[in-house]
């Protein structure tokens, strides 16, 4: 078996252009790898080998004709919440178990136009609500670093498939950490771009003001390549920003000497795990060796981030998920008497526990008489957090902190304790609240050999600085080269 499946996109791109391989060969290699490890990892909800090979053949003819784009022929997995025309898009939910959208999400359209090979859709927590991919209707995805561990969530399938080399790259979505947390747990790179950088059109909404699509890859170079493809204004998304994004690959392998990183005390004092502390201290040393200056910072309202998030996100979700009612598409409960009964039974049987919990939270918080105390107050906190960051970025280029409080936890460990599960996102949620770009890159391994990610945060539309710093770190520390064992720990 060839080792094409384990190569990064930029390596494959040059092999393709040198004529040393073909997209079909790459895709076949990846499909073979999937056959080998997918029974253990369970990263995919839907896979269509024939369609993937057909895309690969088309990509090869594009490459042969010289009409190709940079990522033509490269395999990619998409999270199961991105509408893929005519193909099952379930959001990890029973209520959409047979839903086939009649249109493509803008990002899917971009991948297809680029000539990328979409392998299939990756598993996720139901409607992206969760931090472990355990709430999926299709069952949990397992962490390639330890099959009894969760890959994190909600984009667990997207992260695990990249870590297990079941795809070259993937797309996920991040509402409170759903790209960065699984990237950290699975030892890959994952970026949540600035809110508004990537079109949300066709991304099935969880919390519209927080959701953002972003890439997963095994190195930062591939992250830059994917950002080049997916960032950009979309007239179909009113919240998409009309900004000109730079060529992100231009920020790879450049000097970071003289740049400033902020270390907010409110983040540092939350670190309880020794391994996480060591990895972060190590990362700081690496950056300092590269000529980066560190300063201390204060983000006074950070501590209210999780509380405010768990008001805003459920409020939006309660409204966004109202459309799943058994009337038009998706699951409809059998044996119903009348309209209200159809609504109640379809939703009761179609949604899982966590989704119902958040719908109820949001419905309650928006109810007459509670709106000011909950939604409005949370919205104000959100503004304060955004202001905190704005002020912080006046004196630094980026903020460094852990991605997660600890390495991956065991499947089943937190599923019955929502509060513990929610606290997993303590370092990632504030970034969504402020709409900032954040990246998680492999920072090192724990004493038990599990990956630990470090998170870099920049100001709005400064993804380029994240690429610049991550690339420098990666080139120097090479932590991203560690590969999982694919065994039970």
């Amino acid at each position, binding site marked *: 078996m060839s080792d094409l499946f384990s190569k990064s996109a930029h390596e494959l791109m040059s092999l393709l252009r040198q004529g040393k391989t073909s997209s079909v060969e790459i895709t076949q290699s990846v499909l073979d790898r999937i056959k080998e490890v997918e029974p253990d990892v369970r990263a995919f909800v839907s896979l269509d080998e024939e369609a993937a090979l057909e895309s690969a053949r088309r990509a090869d003819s594009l490459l042969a004709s010289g009409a190709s784009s940079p990522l033509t022929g490269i395999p990619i997995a998409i999270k199961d919440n991105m509408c893929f025309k005519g193909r099952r898009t379930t959001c990890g939910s029973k209520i959409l178990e047979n839903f086939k959208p009649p249109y493509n999400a803008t990002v899917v359209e971009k991948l297809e136009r680029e000539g990328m090979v979409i392998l299939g859709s990756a598993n996720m927590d139901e409607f992206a609500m969760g931090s472990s991919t355990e709430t999926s209707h299709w069952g949990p995805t397992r962490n390639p670093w330890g099959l009894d561990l969760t890959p994190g969530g909600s984009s667990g399938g997207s992260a695990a498939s990249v870590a297990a080399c079941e795809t070259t790259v993937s797309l996920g979505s991040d509402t409170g950490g759903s790209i960065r947390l699984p990237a950290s747990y699975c030892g890959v790179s994952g970026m949540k771009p600035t809110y508004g950088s990537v079109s*949300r059109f066709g991304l099935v*909404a969880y*919390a519209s003001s927080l959701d953002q699509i972003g890439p997963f890859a095994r190195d930062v170079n591939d992250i830059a390549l994917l950002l080049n493809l997916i960032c950009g204004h979309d007239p179909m998304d009113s919240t998409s920003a009309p900004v000109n994004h730079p060529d992100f690959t231009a920020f790879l392998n450049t000097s970071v000497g003289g740049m400033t990183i902020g270390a907010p005390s409110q983040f540092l004092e939350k670190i309880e795990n020794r391994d996480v502390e060591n990895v972060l201290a190590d990362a700081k040393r690496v950056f300092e060796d590269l000529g980066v200056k560190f300063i201390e910072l204060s983000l006074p309202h950070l501590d209210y981030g999780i509380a405010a998030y768990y008001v805003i996100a459920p409020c939006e979700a309660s409204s966004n998920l109202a459309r799943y*009612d058994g009337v038009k*598409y998706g699951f409809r409960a059998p044996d119903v008497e009348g309209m209200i009964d159809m609504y109640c039974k379809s939703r009761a049987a179609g949604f899982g526990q966590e989704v119902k919990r958040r719908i109820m939270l949001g419905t309650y918080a928006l109810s007459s008489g509670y709106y000011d105390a909950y939604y409005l107050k949370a919205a104000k906190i959100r503004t304060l957090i955004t202001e905190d960051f704005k002020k912080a970025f006046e004196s630094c280029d980026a903020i460094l902190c852990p991605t997660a409080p600890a390495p991956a936890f065991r499947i089943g460990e937190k599923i019955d304790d929502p509060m513990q599960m929610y606290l997993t996102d303590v370092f990632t949620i504030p970034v969504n609240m402020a709409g900032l770009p954040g990246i998680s890159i492999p920072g090192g391994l724990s004493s038990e050999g599990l990956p630990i990610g470090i998170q870099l945060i920049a100001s709005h539309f400064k993804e380029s600085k994240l690429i610049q710093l991550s690339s420098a770190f990666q080139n120097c520390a090479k932590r991203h080269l560690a590969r999982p064992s694919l065994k039970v720990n």
Partner: protein
Amino acid sequence: MEYEAVIGLEIHAQLLTDSKAFCSCSTRFGAQPNMNTCPICQGMPGTLPVFNRKALEFTIKMALACNCRINEFSRFARKNYYYPDLPKNYQISQYELPISEHGWVMVETESGQRKIGITRIHMEEDAGKLVHDEFKPVSYVDLNRTGVPLIEIVSEPDMRSPEEAASYLKTLHSVLVYLRICDGNMEEGSFRCDANVSLRPVGTTALGTKTELKNMNSFRNVQRGLQYEIERHTDVLRDGGRIVQETRLFDPVTGSTVSMRSKEQAHDYRYFPDPDLLPLHVPEEWVDQIRQTLPELPAEKKERFISEFGIPSYDAGVLTASRELAEYFEEVVKSFNNPKSVSNWIMTEFMRALKADEKSFSQIFVKPSQLASLLQMIEEGKISGKIAKTVFDDMWATGEDPAKIVQEKGLMQVSDTSELENIILQILKDNPNEVSKYLSGKTQVMGFFVGQAMKASKGKANPGMLNKLLAEQLSKLSQG
């Protein structure tokens, strides 16, 4: 105790944009069910709304016409409720920050003009329609109307009688139609009205408990529904009872109202800002630009017609009830400067034909200049008023010039003295008895001679000249 009614109206008007409020689907009425739909207005997972700027422009026009303040920043909110005709199960509307507030309009009432306050005008999207099978317990959903842009115009509780409410409603209706932002069709539902009504003892200011009335799809039904509800409130209060706050449905067949849902059953709409849409920014310069494009509105036009053309208030009211009619009138007057005569013709023959054919102005054959020529011919004595009516009917049917019709059909009035004299002499000769009667002093037979002469001339005799010549001939006979 004497009671006074307090009435406020909520009007929903569909805007005449080509495409829907948040997607590019057509808004055309009458298409096959679900033909004017796309994933966005079907509420498919992952779709997002993009606001139609034309709808905003139309709303601003109405807000300006109603003397509202335009908010520089406004935002869309989601109104959450479950119903199968609402595919997202929330309606995009405006709540805390509407596009416009604090307006007023002047309304004609029995006791003269009254100023009715407008609380707010905001934008929202329409819902679809449920179609219920007549024979089976099955309902179907038609989403063609889903997402059609609406404005909701909320009045202050300033009206005191069903007549005032109807007058307010008609005023807003004609303003919307004048602005060409709504077709005003109540039957097709492009102009709808809900009413809130309460009673209070005359002379007091506190508001009584209100009921909300729905399902009144004509001006008359709004009046009937309110009348019924005021009488019902009066009876309840006179009997010492209390009004229950509730929503009631008007039944046009019985003319009564029935309870639909109580306050306790009222929806909690859980409004919150729609995160899919950015706050709307309407710069003052844009508002000023739109203000420049506002047409003359019905009230101003009526006043101008009275002062400029010297026509009675009643005529001015009829002519300005529709913008097209008013413009037609002005065009005719441009070529034939006798406004009262033009007004008479338009209010009678023209409107009769218009009504009979159920034609719209764009379908009319008769050009204003042609109607002017016809009136000119009457004034010049070329045809009689009576002949003119038949000429007009021909013009209406064919669009031919009146001169050509008169010529071809030989309808020119006979003003030739010798020809008329010959006719008169013949009639006098043929009717010796009547001549004797006249000569013996029974001058009423004059009418008989005129009638005979008209008949002989096939109606073309110039009546003034005919009378004069007849009188001359008869006086000759009496002297002879």
